[in-house]
């Protein structure tokens, strides 16, 4: 199987190299009109097919590695170091991306998968897709070079074949780890597609903005995968690391956040290019940066150049990635300089109070956040290079900048949709802003009366601002739905809820986007709860207790158990509220035999109001009694609910509009005569 896997990877490299070479020659011949022995169209077609075939070859390699892990083939060094016989099935699957070589194979496989779909759908614009396919092949070649010459997933372990493997890192033996890395990688890798289209469109001086329309769904799908990947990482950190939080500004967390920030900025600013032909230079650099930040993210996660609880590999492939980043930057800069006259804006910003300016501010704020995170993440590396000693940047640095930036973004989320394109008059602002402002102010007053005193500390102040802005934005979004639904209601006579559904189906992109904004608001509410976190730590023997918030925790017992994969120590904690037993929690600590590593398993009881989060810290060596740390974390559940709403909103935004569906049905010969419906332009739902 190792020989087959290695061969499949080598074959994939040859196919991608052919795609790159033949694709480049064909595109050159087509643009210069030069003739070759084979027609350029035919040559381009073989290049496209080679790209499609590369997916089959990389899939064969991935299947070979999976087969090897499930059959405990410890002759392969990668399997020996990342699996063992007692490892449960789903974690054997996760072993595919738990190490350097496997995760690079996953990158290459996902990239080939995206390329496969792109190349199959080439009829959408044959020439532009040929450019994108060739650029994508260049990226594939880089990853396949790594897999064939530096990080070999099928390398044979020296010496005799071991009877059992060294096991999977215990931190990775958690259900989310089966889906978190693929999600994150789907996000990272996915940005290659809009990048390839943007670079291709610039190279060929593609007239118009249709490339944005073609890549819109790609970008949104990629963005939602990255969002889910980042949030699953947060949830994993919360559930596994046992420090009571979900975001520690760890370099690898930051690495996933940076492309998310620029990708989010891109998703907003391309709307200006689509609708008004503005910000073309900006958008091109946004997607270039997003792609490069994705590569940087992979470099940070996989090279070990920064210390992180999320980095599970250390190697020398960093130089390869740095080289690739430099080449990418040179190609992008060269193409931009050569073709910059093609990116002339068609309109100028007419007013500072307009939808365009809100997008511009949104972009500037997102980029400021990205720069802050980039600076903080790379500062230890730079300080070590300049001074010889590593100076790390802690959470207070990020929080000082990121919290106000986040709140300003939240404010823009509410304000932007209420502003008109081009310019908004004072009358229009007054008309649209009164209700949201009243909601925000009333919320602030109510919360102050209920004890959230902004003058107490910084956390309370920011939380109060966050809750008030959440009310403002929710009202703004709600008013958009109600106003639009009222128009539908006037024309159709449906009730307001049915009209809202109809409205959303008629302009899925706009109203799906609003749902995404609402999901973000809900997430912010969850994040704001962290200002009121409480914790208590105590040594608890049988029958002993401690109090936290409304809960009374009693240690019912503590014990040890053993199974094939790990030994475990845990406490059984009865949780009482108002004198009544509510539920039982069992925080534990595991010792994994294969890897000889310990791992905390948090016990968490989550409610919409707060999480009761228990950590088994270990036993006091003097008394032999377990030490339990309990956290009461308010509103955490709303972060996960918010993400679910974001996913739903994105799914809605990805659906075709009802009018477009009806139009395509009407245009079908069999329905053309039967259809008598005439759409009123005003009923479309806006954009």
């Amino acid at each position, binding site marked *: *199987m190792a*020989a*087959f896997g290695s*061969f*499949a990877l080598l*074959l994939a490299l040859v*196919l991608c190299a*052919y795609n790159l070479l033949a694709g480049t020659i064909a595109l050159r011949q*087509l643009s210069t009109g030069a003739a070759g022995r084979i*027609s*350029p*169209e*035919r040559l*381009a*077609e*073989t290049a496209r*097919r*080679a790209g*499609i*075939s590369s997916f*089959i*070859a990389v899939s*064969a390699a991935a299947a070979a590695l999976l087969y090897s892990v499930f059959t405990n083939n410890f002759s392969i060094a990668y399997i020996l170091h990342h699996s063992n016989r007692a490892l449960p099935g789903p974690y054997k699957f996760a072993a595919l991306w738990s190490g350097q070589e496997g995760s690079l194979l996953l990158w290459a496989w996902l990239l080939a998968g995206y390329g496969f779909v792109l190349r199959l759908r*080439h*009829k959408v*614009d*044959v*020439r532009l897709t*040929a450019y994108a396919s060739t650029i994508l092949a260049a990226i594939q070649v880089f990853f396949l070079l790594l897999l064939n010459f530096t990080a070999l997933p099928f390398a044979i372990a020296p010496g005799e074949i071991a009877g059992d493997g060294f096991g999977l890192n215990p931190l990775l033996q958690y259900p989310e780890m089966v889906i978190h890395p693929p999600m994150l990688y789907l996000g990272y890798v996915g940005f290659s597609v809009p990048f390839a289209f943007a670079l291709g469109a610039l190279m060929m001086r*593609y*007239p*118009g*903005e*249709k490339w944005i329309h073609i890549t819109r769904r790609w970008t949104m799908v990629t963005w939602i995968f990255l969002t889910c990947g980042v949030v699953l990482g947060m949830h994993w950190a919360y559930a596994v690391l046992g420090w009571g939080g979900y975001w520690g500004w760890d370099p690898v967390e930051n690495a996933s956040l940076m492309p998310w920030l620029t990708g989010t900025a891109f998703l907003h600013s391309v709307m200006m290019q*689509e*609708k008004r*032909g503005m910000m073309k230079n900006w958008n091109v650099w946004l997607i270039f940066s997003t792609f490069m930040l994705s590569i940087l993210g992979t470099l940070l996660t996989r090279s070990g150049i920064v210390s992180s609880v999320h980095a599970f590999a250390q190697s020398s492939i960093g130089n390869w990635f740095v080289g690739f980043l430099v080449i990418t930057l040179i190609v992008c800069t060269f193409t931009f300089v050569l073709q910059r006259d093609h990116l002339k804006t068609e309109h100028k910003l007419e007013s500072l109070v307009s939808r365009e300016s809100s997008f511009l501010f949104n972009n500037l704020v997102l980029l400021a956040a990205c720069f802050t995170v980039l600076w903080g993440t790379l500062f230890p590396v730079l300080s070590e290079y300049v001074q010889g000693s590593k100076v790390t940047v802690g959470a207070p640095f990020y929080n000082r900048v990121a919290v106000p930036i986040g709140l300003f973004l939240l404010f823009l989320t509410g304000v932007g949709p*209420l502003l*008109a*394109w*081009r310019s*908004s*008059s004072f*009358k*229009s602002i007054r*008309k*649209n802003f009164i209700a949201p402002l009243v909601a925000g102010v009333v919320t602030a007053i109510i919360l102050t009366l209920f004890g959230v005193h902004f003058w107490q500390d910084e956390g309370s102040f920011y939380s109060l601002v966050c809750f008030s802005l959440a009310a403002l934005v929710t009202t703004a979004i709600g008013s958009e739905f109600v*106003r*639009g639904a*009222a*128009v539908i209601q006037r024309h159709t006579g449906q009730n307001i809820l049915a009209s809202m559904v109809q409205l959303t189906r008629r302009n899925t992109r706009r109203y799906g986007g609003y749902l995404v904004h609402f999901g973000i608001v809900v997430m912010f509410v969850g994040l704001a709860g962290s200002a009121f976190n409480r914790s208590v730590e105590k040594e608890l023997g049988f029958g002993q207790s401690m109090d936290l918030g409304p809960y009374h925790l009693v240690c019912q017992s503590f014990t040890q158990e053993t199974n094939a994969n790990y030994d475990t120590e845990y406490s059984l904690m009865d949780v009482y509220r108002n004198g009544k037993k509510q539920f039982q929690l069992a925080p534990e600590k595991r010792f994994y035999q294969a890897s000889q590593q310990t791992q905390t398993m948090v016990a968490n009881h989550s409610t919409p109001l707060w999480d009761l989060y228990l950590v088994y810290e270990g036993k006091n060596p003097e008394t032999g009694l377990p030490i339990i740390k309990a956290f009461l974390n308010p509103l955490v559940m709303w972060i996960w609910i918010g993400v679910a709403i974001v996913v739903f909103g994105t799914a809605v935004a990805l659906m075709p509009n009802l009018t477009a569906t009806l139009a395509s049905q009407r245009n079908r010969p069999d329905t053309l005569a039967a259809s008598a419906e005439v759409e009123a*332009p*005003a*009923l*479309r*739902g*806006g*954009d």
Partner: protein
Amino acid sequence: MSTLACGVLLLALFGYIFWPERHVEAQTKKTRLDFLEERRDVVFDNLRDLNFEYHAGKYPEEDYAAQRASLENEAAEIVAEIDTFRLA
């Protein structure tokens, strides 16, 4: 077994890539007319959106009139250029 699998994979993929195809998609260059037609559709969409937001009570009459006039001018310029191309 591995050698056989490698051979099958190699032959199948090379066969797929170089198998003579009768119909190959032509790589046409996008014209100025294509671009103008796309732009026209976008401006019409913008007009529809403006109408909708006006009906939803989002804009005062005077803002609506000014923006509509501006978009209609833009659309008229594009349509005129399309007509010029078509006549030529």
